[in-house]
């Protein structure tokens, strides 16, 4: 009996040993190959100068006037160029696009753009100032239903035309003085117009193509399909396989084609970040949009040369419903802000170079700088809470933090919950909802506290501060302060850039003195990039002018 069991133990030991050897060999093999593969795909792509980019979700449309998301913008900007293009090294810079040069009056309220005579559509037609007028008319036609029509409301008379108060488009402040001269008259000084016109909604369209496939105000026409699309950008549409890849090739008729370095770009829509990371490792991508959070530490230590952490113009915060007690009390709101140790959140939870938010507007927006107003100060927080009638958290009602279903939001909310408990002795509940349900709840302002993030569209603090004005559709807190509205309006009338920023600083300081939000952190953009990609500079808006990007054909990667 003893003998048999001894024998079986021995057999078992041998088995375990073999399994162990197998696992070790397998994992060696895996780790050896776990690095970014120098695959044939990437070698060929480098040789032929085809950039393989990862975009998260499938673009809903390639019509710039119907586009809403980041993937749409990144794709469309390869096909269509606006009045000016994005600069190489900073999101604040711009380079000539359809316009060769431009001038403005003293207070930045009237701008004239000289459309270059060599600018052509991809079918050979010249790009004219009239094309811009046509495009803006289409966007401002209410029945068309352009999601970002309001982006053109800085044009004189644009909102009135859109709302049907004026029926004559000639009354709108966009004029083609001749074929190559476009004049924009604005409702007020807009020193940041050159950043604004890089948004999709300001892009020109080829009128004949639009009208060939439907009425001017018709949605859902087929003009954006392969073979139909006419653009004016450095690349043209070659194929479009939804939820897979959009392939583009060089546009020989692009005015600056001599300076375009790539022969093509493939945009891959991969929603699952882990799949994208695997595709990067397999050498199927030059760049992934974002590295899964749990892999940041690994890449940081193992392949720092592949990992990029760039500042990004975005802020993470919690909205507070200021109509609900006790959040109607500014002291309570401030106390909630001061009780959060953002340094610790950034260092221990996020760990990808994010910055603790001390103001609402993130860094890197032109010369605006940041406000250093909200700091971790638990003593003051407790004092404020006591002054508000809740000494040591006594009697503080139970509030709930709402967030959309995602593990990272929960982790963060748990940390905040813990901090509020230990510093202020208040209890907070957590609730998650599916993305659209959560948005619906948020738009109805049916929450106590609700997580959100705001990303800048252009390089000016107004893109952040304007949402807090009374009645703004993105305010969603019920917060309203006439003084704040006045300051934002005053800034919009101020032509002098320095004075304007001073006014906006004052507005933001006022906002932060009775914050209808709880600040958490300023984003970074962390992603993987093959070293063979050249001229990919850190840009706060992450909009890279593809004509500058180059690929190096030499072998690369760590293997």
């Amino acid at each position: 009996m003893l003998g048999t069991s001894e024998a079986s133990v021995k057999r078992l030991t041998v088995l375990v040993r073999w399994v162990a050897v197998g696992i070790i060999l397998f994992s060696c093999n895996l780790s050896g190959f776990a690095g970014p593969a120098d695959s044939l795909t990437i070698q060929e792509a480098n040789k032929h100068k085809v950039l393989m980019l990862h975009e998260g979700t499938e673009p809903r449309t390639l019509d710039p006037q119907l586009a809403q998301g980041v993937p749409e913008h990144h794709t469309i900007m390869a096909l269509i160029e606006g009045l000016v293009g994005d600069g190489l090294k900073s999101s604040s810079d711009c380079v000539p696009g359809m316009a060769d040069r431009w001038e403005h009056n003293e207070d930045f309220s009237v701008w004239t753009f000289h459309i270059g005579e060599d600018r052509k559509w991809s079918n050979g037609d010249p790009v004219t100032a009239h094309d811009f007028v046509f495009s803006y008319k289409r966007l401002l036609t209410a029945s068309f239903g352009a999601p970002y029509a309001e982006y053109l409301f800085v044009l004189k008379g644009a909102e009135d035309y859109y709302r049907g108060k004026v029926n004559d488009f000639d009354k709108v402040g966009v004029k083609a003085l001749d074929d190559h001269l476009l004049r924009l008259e604005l409702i007020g000084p807009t020193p940041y117009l050159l950043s604004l016109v890089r948004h999709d909604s300001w892009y020109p369209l080829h009128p004949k193509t639009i009208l060939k496939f439907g009425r001017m105000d018709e949605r859902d026409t087929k003009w954006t399909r392969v073979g139909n699309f006419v653009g004016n950008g450095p690349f043209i549409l070659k194929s479009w396989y939804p939820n897979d890849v959009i392939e583009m090739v060089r546009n020989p008729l692009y005015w600056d084609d001599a300076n375009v370095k790539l022969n093509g770009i493939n945009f891959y829509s991969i929603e699952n970040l882990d799949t994208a990371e695997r595709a990067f490792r397999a050498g199927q991508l030059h760049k992934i949009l974002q590295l899964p959070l749990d892999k940041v530490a690994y890449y940081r230590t193992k392949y720092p040369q592949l990992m990029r952490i760039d500042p990004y113009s975005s802020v993470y915060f919690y909205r507070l419903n200021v109509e609900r007690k006790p959040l109607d009390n500014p002291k309570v709101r401030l106390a909630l802000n001061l009780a959060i140790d953002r340094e610790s959140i950034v260092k221990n939870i996020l760990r990808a170079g994010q910055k603790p938010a001390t103001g609402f507007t993130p860094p890197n927006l032109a010369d605006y700088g940041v406000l250093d107003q909200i700091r971790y100060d638990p003593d003051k927080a407790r004092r404020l809470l006591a002054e508000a009638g809740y000494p040591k958290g006594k009697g503080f009602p139970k509030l709930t933090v709402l967030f959309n279903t995602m593990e990272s939001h929960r982790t963060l909310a748990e940390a905040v919950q813990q901090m509020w408990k230990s510093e202020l002795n208040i209890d907070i509940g957590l609730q998650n909802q599916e993305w659209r349900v959560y948005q619906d709840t948020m738009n109805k302002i049916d929450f106590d506290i609700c997580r959100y993030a705001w990303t800048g569209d252009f390089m000016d603090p107004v893109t952040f501060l304007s949402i807090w004005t009374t009645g703004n559709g993105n305010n969603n807190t019920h917060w309203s302060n006439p003084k704040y509205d006045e300051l934002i309006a005053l800034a919009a009338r101020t032509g002098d850039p320095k004075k304007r920023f001073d006014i906006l600083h004052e507005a933001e300081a006022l906002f932060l003195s009775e914050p209808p939000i709880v600040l958490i952190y300023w984003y970074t953009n962390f992603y993987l990039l093959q070293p063979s990609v050249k001229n990919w500079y850190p840009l706060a808006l992450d909009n890279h002018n593809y004509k500058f990007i180059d690929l190096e054909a030499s072998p690369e990667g760590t293997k």
Partner: protein
Amino acid sequence: MIKIIVGRLLQLIPVVFVLFTVTFFITKAIPGGPFTGERQLDPEVTAQLNAYYGFDKPLWEQYLNYLWRFARFDFPPSTSYQGESSGEVIARTFPISLAIGSLAFCIAIIVGVTAGVVAAVNKNKLLDYIPMSIAMLGICLPTFVMGPILAMLFGLVFKLAPVSGWHGLNYVVFHPMVMPAVTLGLFYSAYVARLARGGMLEVLSQDFIRTARAKGVPSHVIIFKHAMRGGLLPVVAFLGPAFAGLISGSFVVEKVFNVPGLGQEFVKSVFNRDYSLVMGTVVFFGVLIVLFNLASDILQALLDPRSR
């Protein structure tokens, strides 16, 4: 027989009708709409969009309109793909899921039936325990675990298959359908193996098999000719709906391998509140289920003299 088939096909109409109605009102009852976005749109824009897609009308009118359009195969436009109707989206994505699903189906049958029959014939021996343990593991190991493991192994280590994508993959050995099909096929083969083993064991213990053995019929003839015919009936019953499920795509596998198939449209359409696509995919799947259930019933009848 023909009468039964025609009758079953006629049943399709009320089934689809109920499915359509229930799905329509449930989807409409979920909070949020196709145009609730990260950023609040101008109320006028939302109103325009709702008017364009007919979402501003009373619910019953929307329902009748959808019903009428679907009945005539005039599918309403999708709100998540500009310029495409739900019918076009399904026509674009279904062939991909069909290819993966058919291959997965073959893998499931070949691997599953072989393992099940071998296990049944070698009851309570090593050749029973090994395939059945693996099958148990296969059932317990979800596709979102199996998929990435296979992708790492064949994509990153052996470099035979792409880890993501469908079109324009030039420098890989395997067609991009192989890995998703293997992932799905292995998962289903585990079920098939257990069903096949159970069915075979039951038949093998019956009198007519014993008689055949006593008469000296060679054992391979007994297994292949006599036992498998009845033993695989549970497998056939399972495979009908399983095939419908396989060819309409798997959300998880399509996400793991980033394959642009129908399975992800199914799920994403609900997340996007793309009502036209929700209705399209649900009805499409419903019809497939009914048809393949019928097919498996017919097949069972042909195999099993008792049910004729």
